[in-house]
């Protein structure tokens, strides 16, 4: 490849002495050792290790006493895990839908060649720069029943107004959702905006000629055209949802009771607090399976057709 551009005979000659090239690329291979080690030892090795040890009865330390699917059986009969999965499903579905809808709506508004576009974008995206811990703590404070939103509305005259998500079992997940959306929608907006800006201006001219309204154009014409961006956004949001951990720790620590538990909290608790390693491995394997279900079809669509990435 490097010799392309020279005369033809030379190029073929270059192909003929390929073995020497192997030696020359040795530097490249040596330089890639950290990456190769990371891929083989961490991403492949450690993941497989966890999956394998999820079939043991390891408690405090990992040991090779095989118990088949016992850990999984126990996992799926544990209330706390079932609550976590239910929460993840509700939280995941809502945050996916709202992230995409709000993200797209904001992107469409910013796309209207408005003034102060940069200022608006800066304000909407800044939460994304903050850590989940900071986000969780701020929203914990804003949703505080004695000083926050509930008190403000009560002071305005509605004395029986109740909005206390972080201390109410049945709606605690929405309190977390509010914080998660506040932090994450800016990113989705940016992705969508980049996608919308990548569309040919002629589309707009055509839709104007056809007499299609602005909002209808966005929904009917633009959304199908930015499908790749939306798919990317879906994958990013989904992998973020499965991982959600810090936010819940900061906002509610899984409480009140177990009502805002998430799979990641369950895993951490079993592995590092209650010394039930294999149970944690089984739970984290389930997380891996969840991600794989989302990821494999996407990777297949995205990279399956072409061998060069």
């Amino acid at each position, binding site marked *: 490849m490097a010799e392309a551009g020279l005369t033809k005979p030379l190029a073929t000659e270059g192909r003929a002495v390929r073995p020497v090239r192997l030696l020359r690329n040795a530097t490249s291979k040596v330089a*890639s050792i950290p990456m190769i080690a990371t891929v083989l030892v961490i991403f492949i090795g450690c993941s497989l290790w966890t999956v394998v040890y999820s079939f043991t009865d390891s408690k405090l330390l990992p040991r090779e006493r095989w118990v088949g699917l016992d850990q999984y059986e126990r996992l799926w009969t544990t209330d706390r895990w079932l609550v976590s999965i239910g929460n993840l499903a509700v939280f995941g579905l809502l945050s996916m839908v709202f992230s995409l809808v709000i993200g797209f709506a904001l992107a469409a508004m910013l796309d209207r060649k408005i003034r102060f576009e940069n200022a608006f974008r*800066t304000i909407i995206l800044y939460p994304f720069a903050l850590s989940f811990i900071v986000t969780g703590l701020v929203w914990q404070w804003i949703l505080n029943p004695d000083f926050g939103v509930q008190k403000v509305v009560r002071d305005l005259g509605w004395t029986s107004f109740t909005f206390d998500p972080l201390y109410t079992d049945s709606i605690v997940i929405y309190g977390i959702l509010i914080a998660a959306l506040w932090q994450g929608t800016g990113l989705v907006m940016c992705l969508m905006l980049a996608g919308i800006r990548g569309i040919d201006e002629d589309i707009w001219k055509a839709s104007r000629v056809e007499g299609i309204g602005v909002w209808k154009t966005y929904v009917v014409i633009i959304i199908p055209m930015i499908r790749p961006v939306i798919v990317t956004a879906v994958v990013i949001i989904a992998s973020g949802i499965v991982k959600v951990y810090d936010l819940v720790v900061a906002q509610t620590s899984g409480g009140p009771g177990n009502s805002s538990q998430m799979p990641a909290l369950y895993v951490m608790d079993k592995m590092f607090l209650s010394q039930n390693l294999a149970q944690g491995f089984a739970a984290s394997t389930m997380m891996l399976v969840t991600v794989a279900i989302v990821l494999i079809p996407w990777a297949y669509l995205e990279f399956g057709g072409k061998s060069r990435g």
Partner: protein
Amino acid sequence: MADLTAGPRGPKPRRAFSTPNIVLYGTLIIVAAYYALPLYVMIVTSLKTMPEIRLGNVFSPPIEITFEPWVKAWSTACTGINCDGLSRGFWNSVQILIPSLILSIAISSVNGYALANWKYRGSEFFFAVLMLGAFIPYQVMLYPIVLVLKNLGDGLTVISNVLGFGDVQIYGTLSGLVVVHTIFGMPILTLLFRNYFSSLPEELFKAARVDGAGFWGIFFKIMLPMALPIFVVAMILQVTGIWNDFLFGVIYTKPDIYPMTVQLNNIVNSVQGVKEYNVNMAATLLTGLVPLTIYFISGKLFVRGIAAGAVKG
């Protein structure tokens, strides 16, 4: 012809106060206010005294501005037995950040360069797995990595003892956390650098090869000077990422060397003592200050960084 079509073409002439405009800007201003609100709440709460907080609500502006909460959050707030405030966590985070930043960017830039310009058998496979690795939930790898770090420490201890030095410990120390950050920063950074180096004109590389430059020669003399903007993007990405990390800090360090986010969570969510909301918010704001500063200074580069993760390579 031109002046006849001048009206309908080009940007639509809009009056500043047409109804659609009012709706559009009105919505945007409300949205922006909503997004800005928590920052405002953090600031005003951190400047109030506790009696004032008990009287008002989270949104009321401070009547009497006090910086006491900031001082307390920084230098005397307690986590467990340590009562030297967030400053401890801040310096821990700095000590974690700098080596992680240098190591991860150094390794990833070389990775990206090798993947873009010096492909070898299997390089595309390793790259593909690296990208998929970014999506594996960290929880799957957390425990085995503890074992890897312990073994790494033991292995290095053997070497260092042979050389006449003391024992080496990786797990539970700052160096262990640096290794972990380097590992998990690798997918996104490698993608960033690979895409950038692939986008450079190939003639440049070819010319250098003809002149007899090798792997490192081309990297240091040609690629590095041209890649400065992308290094800045990588730094922004890593500084915010590492500073905001909580999970790895909790698992791979001990209370004395907890990073700032972990310490912040311990201060605010501690169950003992009276809740001092103003100190809590000052501490929260202090922790958010580093990434916020980076964000507001870097502007478009930050957006470029996060978009790099999204746009496929």
